[in-house]
């Protein structure tokens, strides 16, 4: 089987900062918000990616195509961790001390 090199475009939903189920209004609002954040004269690269993402999501049909076919079976397995909570949560001292108690 001829396997192509993996290339993964950035997720347009993530670029605009909307959820996968966002509707037209939400997408439009997010686009306008991002435009203010990345004006083309000051952040051309970011503006370009925002515009591309909006182009993809503004049309419902293209959005559906993206939703249906965006999954890449050859994507690195590590990409599964994308979208998982990458925050380092503060837990208090209890779980930390529990490790030491267990090792006692």
């Amino acid at each position, binding site marked *: 089987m001829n396997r192509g090199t993996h*290339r993964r475009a950035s997720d347009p939903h993530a670029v605009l900062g909307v959820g996968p189920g966002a509707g037209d209004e939400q997408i439009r609002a997010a686009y306008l918000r991002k435009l203010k954040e990345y004006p083309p004269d000051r952040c051309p690269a970011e503006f370009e990616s925002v515009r591309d993402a909006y182009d993809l999501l503004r049309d419902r049909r293209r959005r559906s195509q993206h939703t249906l076919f965006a999954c890449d*079976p050859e994507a690195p397995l590590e990409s599964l961790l994308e979208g998982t909570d990458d925050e380092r949560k503060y837990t*208090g001292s209890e779980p930390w001390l529990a490790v030491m108690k267990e090792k006692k």
Partner: protein
Amino acid sequence: MSRKLENGNRAKAVTGASDGKMANSEPAQIRELIASRHSKAAVEMAKSLHKRLGTAETEALLLDAYQCRIEDMLRLGMAVEAKMLLQMVGGRFPSSRSRMVDLQREIAASDGRLDEIVAPLAADDLSLEVRERIETFVRDRVYDLPALAAVSSLRPEHPLRQGAAALVAAFQAVTSGPVDDDVVSLSQVSRRSALAPWKALIRAIASFYRREDDACKQWLQLVPEDSAPASLIRPLTAMLGTAVTSGFSAAEQRLVSAVGGGSWALRPALETLEQALAAKKRQPLLKAVRVAVAICGQCCPKIRERLRQHIVTRSLVQGVSRHEICTAIGGTPQQDAYFWRLLARTFEHDPDSDSLAEALFHWEFFRREAIRERWFAPGDLEDGVLSLHMAKLAERLSPDPFYELEPPWPLRRDRSLGGLGGEDLRSPEMLYERACRADPHPDAFQAWLHWANRHRSWKAADQVAELWRQARPGDTKPLLYLMESAEKRGAYRKSLEHLESAEELDRLNPEVRRAKLRLLLSAAIRHLRQGKTHLAITAEIERIEALPDVSEGEVASLAVALRLLCAVIDGDRIAIPHRHDELQALLGSSVSAFVLTQGLAQAANLNGNSELPRLELSRFSAREMLTGTTRAVALGDGAGLALPLPAGWEKPLLSALDQPNCPIDPTQMLVLGEGALSSGATMLAYAASAAGLAQGGSDARFLFLRGRVLPPWQPQRQEGCFRAALELARRERNLELAGKILDQMLENEDRYWGADFLDDSASGKGPVPAELVQEILEEERAETKFPVLGRSRPPKYGSKLGPALCDCHACRAERGETPSGWGEDDGADENDTDFPEESPGTSSQALDELEQLLDTLPPRIAREVEEAIARGDPPEVVMRRVFGNSRPEMRSSPPGGKAKKRTESLPSSLQGNLF
């Protein structure tokens, strides 16, 4: 044998060995038992020995054994038993009390009696040695900092208590939220303090939460491995993304999950798994799978199922059996919509028909599950988009009517296919219909119409256009299609009706206007072909004259050219020069007027007519020739008529292009190249592509032109040109051009490469990297001469394009293949019958003969032969044209070489004929 019995035997073996005398080996054996932590046996032996001899040496040995025994008990959590044994030993051997102090501390610590342990530190005159021992104990054993901060045996202002209290507060703070530097400065704890490892740990945790991972690692290095806080080094390191050598303990797992979903811990395992997948070695892969799934289950349970699904998919592609991989991941993965989609996406990239069929079934499974899981409802837009995708896949299935579409072996055997008919899925028509019903989008209808046009009768295609018209009454495209279809069948009246309907919808639509012009022009030419000039004038030419201009002077020029042809047919020698002058004036070029007249005359079967105006080409400059020709060709294009270049014009135009400071711009060059291509003037088209690439500005279009001009024996260059052109068109957002390139690639896929080609390029799966596009562009720019069979080298970028292999002799020779393309079975028996690859006289043999003859031919004839082959003329025809019926005898050996007996193996394509 039980451990108790074993220990007893060990002891008995020694005690029974002597009576009243100490064997030389006994102390050594006891020490060996102590060293190997067989403390119970050591105690038994030492007791026996001391009972027999009772010397200071045996007492010391016995105390060593007791100490080892008590340590072991503490290690096993038998604190009560250890305490009792310690008391007993202390009572029997008072001299042992000093050496058992450490053990007493251990026992006190396990009882939570920190007061007792640290109490000696309150004394000012405590010996340095004892102080060090207590502090070492605190450093290595004490984890209960609140208890240490509250010990009553030390004064509140004692540094140990103050330090412990500060550490407790800092530890709580640093694990509960962002902290300032002063919180973790911990000046109360000195570097030499027994609590210094805690200070380093707290700073490491602070750095971890601040995402200062390098600083975190540096602080962790300052935590001694045998100190109490060292037990947190492993989970912290794992959360920083470093691989852990073994699984987590329950507390570690809870900590990692609570702090960050465990992705840091899982990342290294996934990297290892990726490497194992790339290495394609079964055992390491299965091991890596087990580890990754286990860690994921512990640290990232939320994505465990997804990971299992991805692992199955990736492993199946690697050829690992389903049973093995399902065992490694701990059972069959969940077969939900996500899983079926993953499988479908995996298999659809494989050009093999079986894989495509599997992909089709998996998409159908996905559709059903997705509907069940409420991703979308039947008949929704998504359903339409999916069905359209499936229809396009079904198009790529083997057209062999005997090819049976078997459903794939489902992972869950009891899975019901529920009426999922292979025959239904095999039919693009059913899928297109479903797609258009759910999503009546022009793209869907266009794809269906395109398919019907290629694979079904005109009636079926017309029905699709009718359905399109019904579904989208405002679209002009189905009407224009129906118009063209009727025109092709000669149903001119019907064709006009459709055109009028389209005009009613959108009279100003450029496509409608162009279609009308084309229809009228086509009808006029038909009438001219029949010699019915009056009909051509009244029914078409006058209507053409009434059309609004599609472009400047276009309609008027065409009408005058048609009137000129009418005059030629009617033999009106007064009107002919008049019309000719009028046409020249309108176009502003004698060359344009000539090319237009000649092209229309050829279409009307008048190209041999002596009344047609003539042109002496040598009178014109290179600029006039080139600009005049491109103007006429562009005019024809605008009217939907591919004007052929006049016969014999290719070489003069080539010479004109070779002039320095080429007088035409890239747009004109492109028109000239396209015109030359449609006229079969491949040399000129190639030269136009070379000049256009040299000028720059429209690289995508010129690469696309070059790809189509290149001879079929240069598939790698064709592929390179198409893929680079496609990438450039995408970058320019030129969807129309990209669509044309994709169509051409699909057509080439059918002709030359099979579906492999589609996989990499036409599917758009693999965009060409920018560096490769640049490389292709530069190499093609440098290739200014048309390739010559047998002499042109394969492109340097060819190896970077993928698996498509050039089939020319040079490339085959470079790959070490036999020039004839036969198998490499050199050991074939010479007595075996040689089966010819094709019957004598077929194209490939004739091509071989021609290639061998090229060197012996006069240069002019050789060039003509090469040009003819490059144009795609059949070799037999070329040979007949050059040699007539007297084909020269083949040389017995190539020039300068020795004749070699060919022992070709049986060509695979014919092996089936033997049976």
